[in-house]
């Protein structure tokens, strides 16, 4: 359970609590944010993105795949992202 307040000016929520689970157990109680924003991946803008926070490295997850085709070329160390016209809604 995370208690939050909304910062109307900057369009984010701040809270304190357990934000998730890892393979080794629950996260620690911690300060956490939920930010409503947009970001740019290559030449593509992902609109209406809800971004959480983590004490470890930043990560982008499977929900990105609702927005386009992601190709990761581990062999040549490059990636591409092709946005699809409208995001797919997973059931």
């Amino acid at each position, binding site marked *: 359970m995370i208690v939050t307040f909304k910062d109307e000016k900057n369009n984010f929520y701040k809270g304190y609590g357990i934000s998730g689970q*890892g*393979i080794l*157990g629950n996260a620690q109680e911690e300060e956490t944010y939920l930010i409503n924003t947009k970001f*740019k991946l290559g030449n593509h803008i992902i609109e209406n993105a*809800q*971004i959480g926070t983590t004490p470890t490295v930043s990560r982008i997850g499977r929900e990105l795949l609702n927005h386009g085709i992601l190709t990761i*070329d*581990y062999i040549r160390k490059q*990636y591409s992202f092709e946005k699809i016209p409208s995001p797919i809604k997973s059931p």
Partner: protein
Amino acid sequence: MLSVSLYAQDGIMNQGEMVSKKVYHEIPFFNTKDEIVQFVTLKGKSFKFIFDTGAPLAISNELQNSHQYPILHLVPLKDAHNNSDTIKIVLIDTIQIGNIVFKDIPAVVIDFKNSPIGCQNIDGIIGSNIARFLLVQFDLSQNKIIFTDQHDKIIFAKEKLPIILDNQSNAFFKVNFNDTIIDSLHFDSGMGKLYDMNISTAKN
């Protein structure tokens, strides 16, 4: 959710090889809310794994107990929420995914049954130290994930951008906000959400 990283010991997971050449394999993929399930073959038997680019190759305690893979190291490990433990790294002599055969790949041994994902009854994780041999295309619009080493089998977007592989072969790339704030992140197919930003970066 399953993202894990090993402390120190650079390159410890990046051993072994993909012995198959000119490979092509498709994994069905219908829903980003569910883990990506793929069955693999170990010693002639099929086991349920999930594909998680935020973790290294991993097997369950039960699989290690039955197969007795040789232990390479005992190392500290932490997950995506900074929980830590000491785990075994073992050497998987052969693992097969579809028609693709990998040899001598290190794997971490995890107690999945007593973990938050115990109810999913998985036997292991296909992680980034397997993916590092491949081109991987995630195409939900076509309901498939492609594993291949043949560049002519994949239709790329025109724009290709660099990635940096860390010592666990996590693929890091950059996103930007308003052309001023840049975040370096890695794609974690084990995380169902869109984006978790490092809190220090978020505060900045």
